[in-house]
């Protein structure tokens, strides 16, 4: 204790006794925030599960209209960005400032690619009237043309039934809110990384102080985990 009281580095806030205590507080606080985020996304996931049980055919049909290719590509991009983020944290731990900047830039780039793909997908759904709202009318012919109705349900579904159309729109309401909230988290993450870059350019990080990089990493990996669950739930489970 005596050692830490005499040396008081710039990056140690005054309300902490030691760098170690400061680091542990940051970690614990970040994990509490992540637990709260699980609750936030958990509500959305549960809503989706309940309505999927209620309208399995419409949800499977809506799911089949999504592009597995884009979804899988984005999953790979996001996993890649988690790797670059983890490497940025490692670069901070080993005190390699140039690598911190390089890996953070790579993470931002991959995050932007993900969001760009999302824009392409949203545009496609918007063009095909797959949005619930007064200006949109469910396009049954598009569903038939894409052969989106799973074979097992083919005899039970009347795609021209307005109730079926609004149930498919319900799937897309969940899709837009869940992926939209996820995308918002990514935009916030990229914003935080701009702040990290500024600090990194000023050479603020090193083996003794890298909590901001590490905490941003935790946040980014959590957002990755949310997508790891969103991808199968939205894109893959409607195949049969």
């Amino acid at each position, binding site marked *: 204790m005596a050692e830490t009281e005499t040396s008081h580095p710039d990056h140690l806030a005054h309300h902490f006794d030691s760098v*170690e205590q400061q*680091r*542990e507080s940051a*970690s*614990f606080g970040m*994990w*509490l925030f*992540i*637990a*709260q*985020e*699980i*609750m936030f996304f*958990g*509500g959305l*996931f*549960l809503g989706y*599960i*309940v309505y999927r*049980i*209620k309208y399995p055919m419409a949800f499977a049909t809506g799911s089949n209209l999504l592009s*597995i290719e884009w979804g*899988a590509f984005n*999953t*790979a991009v996001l*996993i*890649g960005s*988690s*790797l670059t*983020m*983890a*490497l940025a944290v*490692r670069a901070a*731990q*080993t005190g390699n400032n140039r690598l911190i900047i390089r890996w953070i830039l790579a993470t931002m780039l991959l995050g932007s690619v993900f969001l760009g793909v999302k824009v392409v997908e949203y545009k496609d759904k918007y063009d095909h009237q797959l949005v619930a709202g007064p200006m949109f009318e469910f396009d049954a012919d598009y569903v038939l043309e894409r052969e989106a109705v799973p074979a097992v349900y083919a005899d039970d579904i009347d795609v021209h039934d307005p109730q079926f159309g609004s149930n498919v729109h319900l799937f897309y309401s969940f899709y837009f809110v869940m992926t939209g909230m996820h995308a918002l988290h990514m935009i916030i993450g990229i914003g935080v990384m701009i702040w990290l870059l500024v600090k990194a350019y000023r050479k603020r990080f090193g*083996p*003794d102080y890298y909590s901001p990089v590490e905490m941003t*990493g*935790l946040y980014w*990996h*959590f957002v*990755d*985990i949310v997508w*790891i*669950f969103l*991808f*199968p*739930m939205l894109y*893959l*489970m409607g*195949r*049969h």
Partner: protein
Amino acid sequence: MTEHSGNHHIMPLKIYLGVFLALMVLTILTVWVAFYDLGFLNVFVAVTIACVKAYIVLLYFMHLRYNARILWLTAAAGFIWFVLLTAFTVSDVLTRGWLPPPEAW
């Protein structure tokens, strides 16, 4: 500083690359398996693979493996909360209408 706590743990590059490859393989696996109809197992397989992927990310990318137990507890609290929320709600939703509404006396 001679004494290093768990938070200082620096993992070798090899582990990060291995974790990345494992996640990629699992992604390919989950997409591949989605094209086969396994009946009621479809959802089970997809969710299991997603859980394994999430666990790997938690352990290595998020360093839980090398961190203090309190962080494990915090993360687990979030997940257990979600499991409880889902289990109770879904058990209600699935069993609606199993019994006829009670008759008036």
